[in-house]
């Protein structure tokens, strides 16, 4: 067979869709067909639900899907991260067993990395997995876990060896969430939403088929997961563009979408809602105040600059140039933007910034911005960590002398574990 071309892919997908696609199918049923065909994940290997296509040809296939309104495999939440990790590090059994229901959306997943005692210092995990003949017994506490309350599985980073330095004693597991010994409690934020959970793990069990990658190499596996976090952020931005047609499948998709989006409904406010600034400044007449204009301009200029910087990064990638400084700046840029936007909103609002809910400006949206923006510089890697990364990886500045990477983890100074 000759290698696929844009035309051959286009033809093949069209033909297959003509045969298979219908908006009246059930969501899971449709996705099962999609996965079987390999068109659900065209860039994945052929033996693993894909067709081994290049990213460019995979994009062509996705084009064709979009053109007829065909629903994709489930991509929301941490699924993308889990899939990428299992694909790279999982056993054949794990891929066979876990990926299909992940892609159909029948199984949902959560990520059990962060702990109360290890936030920025992710490798400082103290959740303990003790090995025995049938597998592992796990005890510890995880936090900031989105969607844990209805997840079927969690990807878990736990310590299996305390006598080696901290990055070397970790292992990566798939934890079945629906078992005794796993308790999920919602964690309310200062803005009133409860988008995250704490997960208390007491003698929970993982079978021998639950280890991903070699024992003690969990950090390496976790790095794969983390490397895909940015892709998740990108795919989240695309959600807003979801085009829904008519038919049973779209109803089911809407419900899936709503459930997945639930924890994120304040994320636009967290990012600062620069889209409201100019219009509000004009409508309230505050644009006549030169000091307000400065604040609005600062925020809008950061927004433009951040957009253009991201465009430069994409252009560099597209032209095959090595990634420049501009690619590492997005997270910190977003924090700066959110802060500047909050400041401008407060500046426009004046005394009305004291009001929330129905009484507050924009039906409480401004208040929600003011109390949500602080999360922007914490979640997904604090500004402090971003600055370290930029300073070391982009500017090439020396690392600080390390005090914890060369000694057995049991001797590392760490937080007294919190208990409730």
């Amino acid at each position, binding site marked *: 067979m000759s290698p696929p071309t844009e035309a051959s892919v286009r033809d093949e997908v069209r033909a297959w869709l003509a045969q298979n696609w219908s908006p009246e199918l059930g969501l899971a049923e449709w996705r099962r067909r999609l996965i079987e065909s390999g068109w659900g994940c065209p860039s994945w290997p052929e033996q693993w639900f894909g067709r081994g296509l290049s990213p460019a040809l995979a994009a062509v296939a996705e084009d064709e899907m979009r053109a007829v309104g065909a629903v994709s495999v489930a991509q929301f939440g941490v699924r993308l991260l889990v899939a990428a990790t299992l694909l790279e590090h999982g056993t054949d059994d794990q891929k066979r067993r876990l990926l299909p229901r992940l892609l159909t959306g029948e199984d949902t997943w959560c990520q059990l990395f*962060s702990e*109360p*005692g*290890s*936030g*920025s*210092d992710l490798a*400082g995990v103290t959740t303990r997995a003790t090995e025995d003949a049938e597998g592992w017994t796990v005890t510890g506490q995880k*936090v*900031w876990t989105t969607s844990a309350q209805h997840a079927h599985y969690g990807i878990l980073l736990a310590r299996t060896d305390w006598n080696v330095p901290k990055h070397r004693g970790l292992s990566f597991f798939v934890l079945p969430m629906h078992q005794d010994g796993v308790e999920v409690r919602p*964690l*309310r*934020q*200062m803005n*009133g939403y409860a988008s995250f959970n704490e997960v208390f793990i007491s003698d929970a069990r993982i079978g021998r088929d639950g280890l991903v990658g070699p024992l003690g190499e969990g950090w390496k596996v976790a790095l794969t997961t983390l490397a895909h976090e940015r892709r998740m952020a990108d795919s989240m931005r695309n959600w807003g563009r979801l085009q829904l047609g008519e038919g049973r499948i779209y109803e089911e998709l809407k419900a899936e979408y709503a459930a997945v989006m639930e924890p994120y409904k304040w994320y636009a406010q967290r990012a600062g809602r620069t889209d409201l600034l100019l219009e509000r400044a004009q409508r309230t007449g505050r644009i006549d105040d030169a*000091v307000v204009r400065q604040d609005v301009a600062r925020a809008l200029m950061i927004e433009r600059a951040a957009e253009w910087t991201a465009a430069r990064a994409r252009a560099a990638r597209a032209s095959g140039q090595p990634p420049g400084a501009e690619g590492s700046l997005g997270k910190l840029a977003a924090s700066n933007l959110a*802060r500047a936007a909050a400041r401008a909103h*407060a*500046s426009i*609002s*004046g*005394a*009305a*910034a*004291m*009001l*929330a*809910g*129905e*009484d*507050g400006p924009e039906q*409480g949206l401004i*208040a929600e911005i*003011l*109390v949500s923006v*602080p*999360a922007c*510089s*914490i*979640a997904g890697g*604090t*500004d*402090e960590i971003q*600055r370290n990364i930029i300073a070391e990886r982009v500017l090439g500045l020396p690392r*600080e002398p*390390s*005090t*914890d990477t060369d000694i057995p983890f049991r001797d*590392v*100074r*760490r*937080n007294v574990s919190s208990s409730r």
Partner: protein
Amino acid sequence: MNAAVANPPLQFAFTAEQQQFRDSIARFCRTHAPTARTRQQMASDTGLDRELWNGLCSDLGLSGVQVPESLGGQGFGQVELGIVMEELGRANVCAPYLASSVLAANALVNAAAPGPRDEWLPQLCDGTQLATLAVAEADGHWDPHRTTVAARKTDRGWRLDGVKTYVLDGHVADLILVVARAPGSHDHEGLSLFAVRAGAPGLQVRALNSLDPTRRLARVECTGAEALLLSEEGAAGPGLDRAMDESLAALASEMVGGAQALLDATVSYAKMRIQFGRPIGSFQAIKHRLADLLLDVEFARSAAYRACERAAEDPSPLREVASVAKALASDAFMLAAREAVQLHGGIGFTWEHDTHLYFKRAQSSSVLLGSAAEHRDRYVLSLAARTAGDRP
């Protein structure tokens, strides 16, 4: 209120008595206003905890601390009021103290005629009447001269028409002091201070949903509302200006207390929290930011102290120093709040953790009685007017 004090009473240092006074308030707050109680108030309909309020008024006698004994107060001064506010701010106490004991009491002392003043002040001071002061209107400024609420004299007494908003604790006040003006008057003229009783005919009070649930606000609509004239007719302007400036000094003190509490909590956390095998407070970037924050908090503190000292030196000029105090307090409190959330990391963004109570107080206080930018402007314009006036 000694008009002839040659030397300022504070001179930037507190007396042993003032220090003991401060300690007693701090003790009261620890015992009677712990965060758990504040959270109950936050969740309550009105935000008013009468038992706590009575404790502040009766047990400690804090309401009217700055009011002369002859008028029913404790006979201390604005410096002591600043001490009270700083400690209430440090503990983030949820009580109508700013409304009743600061704004309303300062207004009565400075702007009321002797008769009404002597009638009402003692009741504010012993807590039998919970009062508030209604100044700001829809435009969100606390400059009395912007007042549009109009006062009519009728056969059956005074009637007010118009809307006040951002009225602190207006929904639970027994007595709302309203700044209103003679119809047709403008700017500095024709301002009077009125009292409207809760439930008075023509008065509609609506509690507003406030970003800071420990500091409630209300909208007060007067439609021919029955009112009592408290000031000399049309002559309340200067007294109200003074009262607002004194209240700015007090509010700035409260904010400094809040900022200090955030700084203390963040420093403690930074010493205790370990990441990468070290307390995060040993990382230089954190250390430097906390040092910068300390500087800003100390600057704000110095200005708040100076403003209270000036407020105690009646009739020394207060307008400028009050603006300095409020502007610096607004910026320092907001910086402390942002840094506290950030340096606590995720935990600082949770509802369970107390940081957000202070964060919301900071956000709200930073614009209450005028934002930092507004006070910077007011300050420079006031300086300029003065130096222009000084010249031949």
